[in-house]
């Protein structure tokens, strides 16, 4: 059955018509053209589809559009402001924290959620925060470097406001 769902997407109010069985990932990619959020395993294992719902990283592939009614959804496209990347995004570039790049949006969403919650995480906390994001190029070391660099260089609390 078609339903109207209203939520906030990257800071803007959004109203969409959806089927009950449409996932947030399919809505983002196929209906809204936001292809920064990647489709990997489609069953909540790989983290490529990670977005933030009410500031928490979740797998959009196993989240129904119906479940985001009234929520705030942020995708990778919602991070940069006026063409300026977030410090974390910039550190991913500066630290060569990707190879094929497919896991990058998910990694950045998980790491952004971590830094918003915990601006100066330990290495263990960083590793745990990205435990649900697989990088099949196995580029984890550079990814952790980038997150550490962003945490060290930034007054993250002030930035995220």
């Amino acid at each position, binding site marked *: 059955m078609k339903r109207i769902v209203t939520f906030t997407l990257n800071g803007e109010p959004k109203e969409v018509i959806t089927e009950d069985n*449409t996932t947030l990932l399919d809505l983002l990619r196929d209906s809204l053209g936001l292809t920064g959020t990647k489709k990997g395993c*489609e069953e909540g294992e790989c983290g490529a589809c990670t977005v933030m719902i009410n500031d928490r990283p979740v797998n959009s592939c196993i989240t129904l559009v119906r479940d985001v009614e009234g929520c705030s959804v942020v995708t990778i496209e919602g991070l940069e402001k006026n063409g300026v990347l977030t410090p974390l995004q910039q550190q991913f570039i500066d630290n060569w924290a990707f190879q094929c790049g497919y896991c990058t949006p998910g990694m950045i969403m998980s790491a952004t959620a971590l830094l918003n919650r915990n601006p100066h995480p330990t290495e263990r906390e960083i590793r745990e925060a990205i435990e649900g994001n697989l990088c099949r190029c196995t580029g984890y070391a550079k990814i952790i470097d980038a997150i550490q660099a962003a945490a060290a260089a930034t007054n993250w609390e002030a930035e995220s406001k």
Partner: protein
Amino acid sequence: MVLPEFEYLVPTTIEEASNLLVELGSGARVMAGGTDTIPPMKDGALKADYVLSLTRIPGLDYLEYDEKEGLKIGCLTKLFDIQTSPLVHEKNPAVSQAAKYVASTQVRNRGTMVGNICNASPSCDTAPILIACDATIKIHGPEKPREVKAVDFFKGVKRTCLERGEIVTGIVIPPLAENEHSAYIKHSVRRALDLAIVGVAAWVQMDGSVCKDCRIALGAVATTPIRAYEAEKVLIGKALTDELLNEASIIAMRNCHPISDVRASAEYRRDMIRVFVKRSIKKALEGYEEGSI
């Protein structure tokens, strides 16, 4: 992967949800975070014509502590909130640890502890600690509410004691007295997004070095999470020496009926029960350092 068609229903009271379940019968599936509903529906392992979301029912997302009753966890309370709650860390850190062992951060941000037990996987990470701590499962039914002990909740692989129209509304974990301690240890190849090869939870009540009472619960070694009653009997009334723990661990192996699968052979699982029963009791006695979870 295409998610088959279904109708998504959003009851706003638990009574309405229960009545809908009675009306719709076996074609209806109750869902909270959906992390154990959407993936099996995608791959065809679970069929449902109706998905009943509990998320619009107020008052089911809570995490409280009562001096008499203990920790109270609602059926919409996310695993991530249980994992990170200072209250749970203080009152029963093994419960936080068990919550944290489930899947990944992303899954724990949507999945609930109640959903984790209702899924009734033999390797369910939160079941052993609930059984060991003698938790009570609160159930709303079409007739009247009822409660069951965690150990009686599980009836088989993916099967619980829930009757038609019944919905779990919460979990109550009794408080730990000063001489009571608990722990849960999961043995898996990967730390995240992996199922337990075995999971062992222990609860002990001590009188000095003597064990006055204890409960040991084992995961992933039978069709349901189970109690290791015979091993417990070995420990009760005695000082917990290494020798005694070894003896109890060997007896716990006999309670197991594990399967061989992609993660481990039955023999290995049984042997790991020997190792992890001892470790979990030692961990309970040793306690969780602040910041270690």
